[in-house]
């Protein structure tokens, strides 16, 4: 059984159909990319998966749970974490606090324990802090735990966002253009990090990406969208040689790369 499956998901905005009858599957432990030209509906599709938009038609099943109708926080609690296309950290919180917020659904403390500060609470907080510090190390951040997130450089903010998403112990990690704005070296490190996340933590990764080098080097499978529809899916080599994809996407990309 697939980890996440969508059947005929359709999302419309007024007259515009942003996502059309999307049938999509991702297996446990995969790294899968969704690509497509600008405005193809990739981010909208992400937003239907995470519950920000409610699709007009179709089914989304994650780990056996139907997701349609659930709120974004309920979906997150089921084990889907995400990052955002334009980084959305909690700017006036420290890096450590950002990561602790990511653990929200995993912390068991109740209001009474919070007020009494009993042993269970203190232990949980300490463990959480220790884990947050580990996660910082894991994504390659050092000595910035007490910095306000908004004061960090761009690349570090991307890392914090990934650490925050990992903090929830997700089964599925959704990354929305995670290497946008990175230089080649940062990109290479990011690719390495994503592989490690999958290999070491066994987290399935679904990403939206524009940078074809990233897509081709990391993806095990690729789904291509154009005008809200899935136009192709398969292994990277298959996608590379798919005529429709080249027309819709790679064609434009090669032209722009030459220019």
């Amino acid at each position, binding site marked *: 059984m697939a980890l996440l499956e969508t059947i005929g998901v359709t999302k419309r*905005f*007024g007259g515009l159909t942003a996502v059309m009858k999307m049938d999509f599957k991702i297996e446990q432990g995969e790294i899968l990319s969704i690509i497509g030209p600008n405005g193809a509906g990739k*981010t909208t599709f*992400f*937003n239907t998966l*995470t519950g*920000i*938009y409610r699709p007009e038609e179709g089914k989304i099943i994650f780990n056996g749970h139907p997701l349609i109708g659930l709120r974004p926080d309920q979906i997150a609690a089921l084990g889907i974490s995400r990052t*955002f*296309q334009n980084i959305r950290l909690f700017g006036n919180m420290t890096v450590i606090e950002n990561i602790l917020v990511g653990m929200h659904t995993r912390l068991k403390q109740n209001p009474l324990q919070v007020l009494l500060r009993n042993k269970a609470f203190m232990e949980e907080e300490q463990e959480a802090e220790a884990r947050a510090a580990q996660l910082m190390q894991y994504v390659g951040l050092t000595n910035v735990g007490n910095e306000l997130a908004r004061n960090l450089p761009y690349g570090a903010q991307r890392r914090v966002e990934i650490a925050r998403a990992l903090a929830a112990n997700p089964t599925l990690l959704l990354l929305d253009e995670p290497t946008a704005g990175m230089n080649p070296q940062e990109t290479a490190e990011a690719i390495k990090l994503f592989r490690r996340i999958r290999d070491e933590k066994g987290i399935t990764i679904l990403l939206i990406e524009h940078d074809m080098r990233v897509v081709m080097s990391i993806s095990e499978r690729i789904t291509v969208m154009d005008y809200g529809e899935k136009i192709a899916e398969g292994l990277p080599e298959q996608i590379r040689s798919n005529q429709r994809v080249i027309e819709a996407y790679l064609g434009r990309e090669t032209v722009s790369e030459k220019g």
Partner: protein
Amino acid sequence: MQRFLKSIQLRELLRPLGQMIAFSLGSSAVLSLIIIILALILDQTAVGASTMARFKVSLFSYTIVNLPQVLIDGLTLGFVYAAIALGYTMVYGVLEFINFAHSEIFAIGAFVGVEILIALKGREILSTEMSVGNAYWWLILALLAGMAAAGLAAVVVERLAYRPLRGAPRLVPLISAIGVSFFLQDAIRLIESITTGQFHRIIPTFGNFDQRLTFGSMPLGAGSISLGVQIKSLIVIIAAVVMLIGLNYLVNATKVGKAIRAVAQDRATASLMGIDVNHIIALTFLIGGMLGGAAGVLYALKFTRIDPFVGFFPGLKAFTAAVLGGIGNLTGALLGGIVLGLLETFAGTFMSIFTMGAAGAEYKDIFAFSILILVLIFRPHGLMGENVGQKA
């Protein structure tokens, strides 16, 4: 001549007029129907009996007889609300920010207009015996002065208290606006106290504005109720209609209006297209302020007494109207104003009799406010607002 007519795009003049007529008639009809049905039902209950005991008529005929007057009063109030609501909605459309101080801009308009009329009365230029034509000229002068002062005040407020905060988190300009609102209330009071020794002002009586045109009377129990409309109510409605048409024309049929709409759509892109965004925002405040100022003078004309806090409740109601219609939407503000004005007048007139005196006109503000909450729950984007998707 024909080319000139063509160039002024008649459609943009007729469309809002049509809308106003349609909204007025439509909401009047719907609300009348509801209240009549309610009266018919309650007539069979203790409410009907108590009306019979008090007025010697059935609740149904009481309602029918009072209805025309309620509709006229409600529409008058509705157009005042609409004129204020436009100020809120324009600024919201462009800046996505509730200009909390708009109610004080309204008050400034009212005070400037009324002070000018009081000064003229003091020089005995205005009197009840003066020629009707002159009276109208002076009233228009006061209206224009109120508009100018309020427009200017709005621009100054924007420049000093809002512009430095552009780009700050949402709460920041809102709190600044609350500060401006409070500051202006007391500033008006201070200036009035120092210069005139008091801060409650009453518009002088002159001309024939207080006269009532009667269309006849309807029997009610032993006596009868005369049907009519005060001339000043007509002035309020006509002035508001003219302004609303003018605004609609400005926004939808001129180059400046196009720039305003562009800035409302997307500030960054508009500025890339060579639009001076600051200029357009200031202009938006100017127009909204002028409408608010005019509404202030009209309000003073209709309700005669003003004080520095006069803007608070009309402002709150007008904001409700703007939300009711769909904030950011000019037509919506118009519809919201009319609906709210009618609803409030209906509540003020009928609530007491329908609840057998338990809850009377003093609850009409709560009634209007409950409408706001209901609208926000069931139609958060108002009657005419479109659902704007969240961006992730």
